[in-house]
């Protein structure tokens, strides 16, 4: 019987660059900055102490193979694995790095991610690039626009319900020093913005941003030696499920719920011993690439019943001042979504929140929280729970 990962892996170092349109820097600049910051506050030496590396990048122009890491850092001769798993690319690097530590194969490892989206142009993510000329694909907002129209039909949600999500996340991100967008917006601004993929408008969609993030992982007993107790968090559970690449042809596609989400959340919460995430955890980071995705994912993750997510935002429950803050960092809405970096950055945010180091956007009394990605055409979903080392579910 597998024993799971709970409390076997400690996060001791975190690094994150400023996210945004970073024209003057390339993936090398960003990766070096994030990795050195993580090593520095993890109190490890990259060349001497780090035994193995996982790097997440989605697009070939941000790097290919393990060389995407070795060349920028000039850090050679270690096992380096390149991860790619749509929008969960970064979090999947963390997962694999954590598994290596939990398995006892390595003591100190690095998981990092970087994406230089702007180097490919600023007009939306390059398509998923169906190689099949007759399945010409659709833009990411189009995929979620299709879902939003179903939600409007099924539950009577409105464009205003969607717009409240970016208004909330901008309210949060305005206080985060590394965010791409650091300003509040009002509902009218969001509602009057141009349509990107009906009914999704500009503020329903996360921006095109560059960025990098890194974490150092080790075993808790080593963590105590390196950074001292109180300065590291532990992983409580990781769930990951990959579903269809072609959801729109499936007879069971509803546009209202994504099986990968449901399964990933179940796996992560079960491992962490959580039966009611909204009661037992203190906050969450939900993949708000599009406003509708934040809402639909609340439901799949189990924060509320189906159809109720819009109400949760309307009532302020998921605001940073609310009962269960979601995306206290500002989310993808304020950070943009450099694919390889996003999931790693979320783990950085979880760690900083539970260590009380989220200055300016700190969730009050945060002891444990979860982060969530949903990538591709609802294909790959990950949920990771991080908490203080002594945190136990049920509280």
């Amino acid at each position, binding site marked *: 019987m597998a024993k799971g990962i709970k409390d076997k892996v400690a996060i001791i170092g975190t690094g994150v660059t400023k996210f945004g349109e970073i024209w003057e820097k390339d993936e090398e600049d960003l990766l070096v900055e994030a990795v050195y910051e993580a090593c520095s506050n993890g109190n490890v030496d990259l060349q001497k102490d780090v035994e193995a590396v996982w790097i997440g990048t989605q697009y070939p122009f941000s790097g290919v193979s393990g060389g995407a890491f070795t060349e920028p850092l000039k850090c050679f001769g270690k096992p380096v694995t390149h991860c790619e798993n749509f929008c969960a690319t970064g979090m999947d690097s963390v997962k694999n790095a954590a598994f290596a530590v939990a398995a006892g194969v390595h003591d100190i490892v690095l998981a990092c991610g970087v994406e230089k989206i702007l180097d490919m142009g600023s007009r939306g993510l*390059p*398509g998923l690039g169906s190689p099949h*000329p*007759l399945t*010409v694909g*659709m*833009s990411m907002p189009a995929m979620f626009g299709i879902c939003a129209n179903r939600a409007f039909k099924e539950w009577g949600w409105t464009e205003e319900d969607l717009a409240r999500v970016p208004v909330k996340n901008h309210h949060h991100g305005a206080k985060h020093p590394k965010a791409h967008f650091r300003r509040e917006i009002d509902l009218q601004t969001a509602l009057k913005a141009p349509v990107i*993929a009906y009914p999704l408008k500009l503020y329903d969609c996360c921006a095109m941003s560059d960025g990098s993030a890194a974490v150092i992982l080790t075993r808790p007993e080593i963590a105590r030696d390196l950074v001292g107790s109180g300065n590291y968090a532990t992983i409580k559970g990781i769930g990951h499920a990959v579903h269809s690449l072609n959801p729109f*042809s*499936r007879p069971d596609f509803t546009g209202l719920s994504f099986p990968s989400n449901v399964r990933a959340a179940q796996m992560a919460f079960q491992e962490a011993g959580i039966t009611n995430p909204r009661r037992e955890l203190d906050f969450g980071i939900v993949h708000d690439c599009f406003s509708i995705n934040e809402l639909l994912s609340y439901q799949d993750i189990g924060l509320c019943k189906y159809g109720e997510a819009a109400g949760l935002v309307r009532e302020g429950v998921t605001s940073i001042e609310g009962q269960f803050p979601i995306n206290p960092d500002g989310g993808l809405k304020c950070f943009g979504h450099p694919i390889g970096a996003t999931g790693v950055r979320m783990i950085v945010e979880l760690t900083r929140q539970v260590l009380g180091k989220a200055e300016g956007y700190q969730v009050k009394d945060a002891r444990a929280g979860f982060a969530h990605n949903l990538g591709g055409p609802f294909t790959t979903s990950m949920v990771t729970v991080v908490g203080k080392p002594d945190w136990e579910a049920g509280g």
Partner: protein
Amino acid sequence: MVGIISYGAYVPMWRMERGEIAKAVGAMSAGGSRAVASWDEDSLTMAVEAGLDCLSSVDPKEIDVIHFATVSSPLKEKQASSLIASALDLRENVRTTDMTDSTRAGTMALQSAVDAVKSGSARKVLVIASDCRPAMPASEFEQVYGDGAAALLIGEEDPVARIEGFYTLSDAIPGPWRRETDLFPKRFEAKLDRNYGILKDVPQAVGELLKGCGAEVKEISKFALYSPDPRGYLNLSQILGMDAGRQLENPLFDTIGLTGTPHCLLLLIYALEKAKPGQRMVCASYGEGSDAFLVTTTEKIEAIKGKQKGTGYISSFRMIESYGRFSDFKKVPEAESAAGAEMTSLVKYWRDEKWGIRHYGMKCNNCGTLQYPISRCCMVCSAKDNYREVKLARRGKVFSFTHDYLLGCGGVPGDGLHACTRAIVDLEDGCRLWREMSDNTLQEVKIDMPVELTFRLIRRTGGFPYYGWRVRPVR
């Protein structure tokens, strides 16, 4: 006796007021409107539509020969009829021929069809004529031309109209012409072309035809003729000595324009749709000579009515609001994404003809789910290699949709101004697929809206025209 056993037509959704063209280019208006193929249509796609219409109550596997007649094939070297045959799901051993380069090609194809059936080498021959002729902007042809297609199924079983005589006349008159490298047709001397071309050839061919059939002009209920310009119809009526008001079939100039190769066949179909049994009709083409044939309708003419959309497509239309938009439809859409070019595999297109062009899905033998595209493992129960291929329905309704401003139709990067409507569609047979939408307005698209598949140019990547299926509002 050999005859027409089914017919079908296609006229694209879009119309342009000639007055709007005239205003935009500073010319006189020829009045009325013309049919305009959408930016994702050409003579090949329209031929598929007319063929589908013609075969709506015929098993496509019974077709032995298909002739595609056009002066505007989208391909200079590469057969169009083989792809048309595939899209129509004809048999693999169907005989395919493109007959090109003259607006007389449609009637020449028809004569070949009749000969094949008479000789016993084929039982059913599908003749499709289709044109989407390029016209020099601001030229009179820009107003005169219209886009459309006509299809006739020729055979011996229960014809709706017997083909009783045929006369052909070849005439090496110089104009008009279009060389390999010309974008638009040229002509040297319109008056010569008129007086020594159409006004000589068509009456001569019709006269010889009638003589051969032992018929007189006054016995003919309808003349379905082609003239390269509207004035020719008046002249021909006078020369032939017919009562134009009663006997000349409406040239459809006011509504769709002169379609070229398909035109006289389209007019014949228009006449057949209104005909009673026992009527004699003459159809005559023009283009470096003239072919004329005479048909007599049978009792079966009543039974076929309503089975096809036919020229009903004429009254199903939307106006293009401006000359600018019209030009946009007519331009060569060369915009293509560099990234897309890298990612597109012609090999996959070739390999997946069964679902991509022939429009088959798979039905799982284990759980019974009808699904698309064809894949080794069932998307519902994951059963491996346990399915049968099933021809899918062409009509369905929208399950959900979006208007995508970020990625254009056919994988072209969106410009933020023009949306590509994308729809998940539940077909009538229960299969679900997703498609881009054509011919729609943004406002009309709703969940549960009825749609039908339409054969279109999906994309041009790496210089190759990829054809496949989109959906459109039901016409």
